[in-house]
């Protein structure tokens, strides 16, 4: 199997950054920090994988932060107001995310809205919806009431894999959060869907050339709606992880998270030109952002500087993506000339 050069470059940059902080940032190369990285950024990786789907079809989903909040508040209300059992809430939460994402897709497909505009509108609408259904406002006392349903809060569980396997006798091992394994599960499923199914092939075809895909008989509308629904599903999974972590939900949950997810996806090599990218890149991109933020915090670097550095990394990734797009076009043009 041939590994793309962009992926190798990303891995090299990730490893280099990790080594740099291991040497320069106190307590960076510790089991506790790795545990913090996994628990703090697994849901970001899930959001980034979800975000990759709209980008793969030349779209964007600005509403995922608001979908996180909608799903979080649905879980909050169902648990604390209606006392619905957690095992029923979990599928309902996922369905809510899928539905919210599918609405985005339908706005893009049926109303032919620009994805940026459509999801900007739903960002505002979903956030407004959160305030209107907020159990924190509707029922007195819920602002200070924690969710205790074990099906929900059980997502925030840690496993002592080092202890079970005996590795902890030789080196200090982090405890692995369940959210990290959920992230791995999402990765395996979505990567398989993308690379080994007809849906994945059609999705990449629609992203590569929408008109050609339509003429080839692909249900382009369905594919686009499914891409946004997948993004919504991932937002729902991320919301469940966050609600479990915080034992509550807030109206502002997920604010600004769309930008982090987009940054992680683009850093991970998912091209705005459409049709190019895998699930591996967004995961690495999310954890790269994680180690940069944790490393700089441990170094005592001011947070506004961290934001500048994060922006610079994103800019570098977008520029690199642009260079690859231009190169691909030139190569294609040269091939066409040679063929004619």
């Amino acid at each position, binding site marked *: 199997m041939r590994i793309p050069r962009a992926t190798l470059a990303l891995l090299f940059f990730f490893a280099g950054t990790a080594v740099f902080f291991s040497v320069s940032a*106190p*307590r960076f190369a*510790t089991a*506790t*920090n790795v545990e*913090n990285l996994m*628990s*703090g950024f697994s849901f970001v990786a899930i959001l980034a994988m979800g975000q990759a789907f709209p980008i793969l079809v030349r779209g964007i989903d600005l509403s995922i932060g608001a979908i996180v909040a909608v799903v979080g508040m649905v879980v909050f209300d169902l648990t604390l107001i209606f006392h619905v059992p957690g095992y029923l809430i979990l599928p309902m939460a996922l369905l809510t995310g899928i539905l919210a994402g599918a609405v985005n897709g339908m706005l893009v497909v049926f109303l032919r809205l620009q994805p940026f505009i459509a999801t900007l509108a739903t960002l505002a609408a979903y956030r407004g919806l959160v*305030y209107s259904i*907020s159990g*924190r*406002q509707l029922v007195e006392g819920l*602002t*200070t*009431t*924690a969710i205790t349903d074990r099906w929900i809060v059980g997502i*925030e569980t840690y496993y002592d894999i080092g202890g079970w396997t005996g590795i902890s006798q030789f080196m200090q091992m982090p405890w692995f959060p369940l959210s990290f394994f959920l992230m791995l599960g999402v990765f395996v499923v979505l990567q398989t869907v993308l690379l080994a199914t007809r849906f994945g092939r059609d999705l990449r075809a629609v992203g590569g050339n929408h008109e050609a895909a339509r003429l080839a008989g692909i249900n382009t509308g369905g594919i686009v709606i499914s891409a946004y629904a997948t993004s919504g599903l991932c937002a729902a999974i991320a919301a469940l992880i*966050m609600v479990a*972590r*915080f*034992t*509550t939900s*807030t*109206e*502002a*949950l997920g*604010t*600004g998270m769309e930008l982090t997810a987009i940054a992680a996806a683009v850093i991970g090599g998912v091209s705005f030109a459409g049709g190019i990218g895998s699930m591996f890149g967004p995961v690495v991109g999310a954890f790269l952002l994680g180690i940069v*933020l*944790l490393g700089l*915090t*441990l170094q*005592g670097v001011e*947070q506004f500087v961290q934001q500048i550095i994060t922006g610079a990394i994103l800019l570098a990734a977008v520029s690199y993506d642009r260079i690859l797009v231009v190169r691909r076009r030139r190569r294609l043009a040269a091939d066409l000339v040679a063929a004619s």
Partner: protein
Amino acid sequence: MTDSNETSNGRRDFLKGAALGTAAVAGAAGGLFAGIDPRTGNLAMPQARAQDMRYKMAFIQWQPHTVPAAWSKGIEDVLGPQQIVDYELLDGQNKVEVQASLMDTLINQGASVIFLQPIDSVALAPSIAKAKRSGISVITLNIDATEPHASHVEMNHYFGAMDIARVMGDAMGGQGKVAILNAPPGIIIRDQRTNGFVEGMAEHHPGIEIVADQVADWDRKKAQDVLNTILAANPDLKGVYGVNDSMALGAVDVAKEKGTIGDMVIFGNDGEVAALESIEAGELTGTQYTDVYQQGRLAAAAATVLATGGVPATAFAQQSHLLMPYIIATRDNVGSIQPAQRW
């Protein structure tokens, strides 16, 4: 002469309150630890750390604002001269996940004490529990957490807002319409500052009608826009209560623009220097003033006792709780607030 006496009394009351507050925190720090040795009278605590040890402390603020900036300065006033504490101010960026991640990082760094202005009382509770398990004491500022911790130091939101309603109603002659410029829902201090005001009005001035309660996002510019809309629907509005000073100053801007600055009664909450200067200029009618520097100093004093005394987070029988003293600052008494107390 009478004015001068009142000012003097106000200042004395204020200083008395501040002194009592200091005593309360000292008492809280000293009296709430479990396990006093009945023979020696000493606290049954692990041996204090070596004197040459440096202590790591950090304050995780909600987001940049005049209030947490002043707390941080107050904290530095106490920690800086000791030269044994490495202190830093961290920004929660108005996101619970960022605050939780910063808590994790500080726990990893082995901080001695964490000052925290939680965005949400419940959401940060698991992080506080984790810090406690690692022996790290947490001191919350202004917003309490549902997980019991070392200490909580807060402004007196509810009763302060009741007093604002009383003084504001007096200034309005007990009659007229009032609008509230509010913070976004879902924040405890918003509810405390709103409920205190509404219930204070009902108790002291039932003739005053609260005709609008609109969100202006803590923001001066947004407050201008929101108040203009409210005034369009209620041109006979006589009073405005901003849940923080920034929004109240936004109302002052609108009143100046419309030439109603003398007629409109406008109150804020917090007591930042811009609000005090506006009161002195005869624009803002009043605000609830809290010495926020002192609030930070009190928190830092308690933190120093905990860290240098080697008091682990698990040594507390119960959480201490300190309500800061305050005054309702108006033109009559604003002069009693000394330059060093202005933030």
